[in-house]
């Protein structure tokens, strides 16, 4: 039973994001009542729900796979959430930068075209917080700053397969083994 109920965040493997403004993983599971309103208001329909694959405790909780469909930071889900599992955040750069922490993008320089001498810069064009979260240097080589909120639009738009820029979810980055 305890294995089945183990928090999804404590297991390796599946890389997913929680909606923007979501509480820390354990608190999120406690607070979310699985009403599904976050997905219903999502204009991009990027929010999906777990079945049993991440354990019984994570059943029917919302997640985002940025490579499939990334968050456009419209911040509607926070307003829709009745329980505060997703905090309401204003749709302004300042509040998004300070309150949203879905994860942080990481560039794989072995895969990134710009680092291989072929000017690309697609991730920079896709970034909703250009020059704040993601800046480009010589040959449009992307550099992620500490301010990146992890929306995943860069990962979504990367033209390399597999993608050269990935969002490392906050709950995986802060995981304690």
């Amino acid at each position, binding site marked *: 039973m305890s294995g089945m109920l183990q928090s999804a965040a404590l297991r390796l493997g599946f890389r997913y994001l929680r909606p923007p403004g979501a509480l820390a993983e*354990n608190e999120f599971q406690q607070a979310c009542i699985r*009403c599904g309103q976050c997905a219903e208001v999502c204009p991009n329909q990027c929010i999906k729900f777990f079945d049993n694959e991440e354990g019984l405790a994570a059943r029917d909780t919302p997640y985002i796979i940025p490579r499939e469909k990334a968050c456009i930071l419209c911040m509607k889900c926070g307003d829709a959430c009745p329980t*505060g599992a997703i905090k309401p955040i204003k749709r302004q750069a300042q509040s998004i930068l300070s309150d949203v922490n879905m994860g942080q993008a990481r560039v794989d320089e072995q895969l990134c075209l710009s680092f291989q001498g072929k000017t690309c810069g697609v991730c920079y064009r896709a970034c909703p917080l250009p020059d704040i979260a993601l800046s480009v240097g010589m040959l449009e080589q992307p550099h992620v700053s500490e301010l990146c909120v992890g929306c995943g639009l860069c990962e979504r738009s990367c033209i390399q397969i597999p993608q050269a820029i990935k969002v490392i979810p906050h709950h995986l980055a802060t995981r304690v083994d």
Partner: protein
Amino acid sequence: MTAVNNVDHVQTKSGKAPSRPFFLWRHLNKLRWLSLTCVFIMLLLLPYISVYQNFLSAHAYDLLPAADKSLYDIMETITDPFVTDPVNDLDAIKGTTWSASFDSYKLSDPLAVVAQIAAAKRVYWPFVLTALLPIIFTVLLGRFFCGWICPATFLYELNTNLGLLLEKMGVRTGHRRLDKRMKYAVLVVGLLLSTAAGSVLMAAIYPPAIIGRELYYYIALGGFGSGSVFFLLTLLFDLLVARRGFCRYLCPGGALYSLLGRYRLLRIKRLVTRCNDCAKCNAVCEFGLDPMRDDFGQECNNCSACIAVCPTDAMTFILSPQDVAAQGPGHLGKRYRSTQQASLASASDEQVLNLQG
């Protein structure tokens, strides 16, 4: 019809004819079905609206496949009279019966609040307040959610009818009577498990929450989840083991509302002077109560099916925090008449004895 006419000539002890219940009460059951149908239609419509909004914000009508184009057109026709800016205006109504928002006003199932408090072990007041109105209504009207709103009730009652049809065709269905207190145990165990797991597990075993969610999964996300398997199992349980078994014996939400509605003000009462003991009310009661013997208790959901079915208009609503005590056999029934005759006979015997003495 003759029975009804007879009733009006019956004289009670006080010499007054018993009053008929307000004539609209027996039509409330139709209103209840309308309400259930509307809720279910909304649960179907809202995911489609969500998909439509998704199409709208993508600004790519021409790129949609043919099926999605027709969905777009249909939803545009349906919603057009109500909105000017569909992308934002259609956010006005969202959610399911588990938790919904009407513009900025949010309503939640009291069970969602209780289960969330159990899981999080702390109280988040803005969420608790969303269940305030449902709680007030449940305290006043009892378990009305079960009969009037619950999308599972809609399907379970259709399932009951399917069972009756099967019986007519000679297939045996389940009519076991189990212990009604089981659902209170399910409520308590569910809350304890939610606390232990740190997760609102109650949402996974509560049919109305499952239905709202699964319909969204099916319509907007392209397929049912495993919750629908659980719901199908409850349908089979109702069909093969006990009629309306899940609601009667297992539903944690029903248990919570029964407790909240224990001292409800609106109740159904049997008018003993009009009752002929035909037991149709008992047969029709989805929750397996005993209206004919005045046994409603905390589990009656004021669904008014017994009022609608009563051939002698012997059921009515009253405002009272308690059920009336058992009133004995109906005055139009055989049992009452035989006891009356017996008592008359014994009374005359006594008189004879007294005279002799």
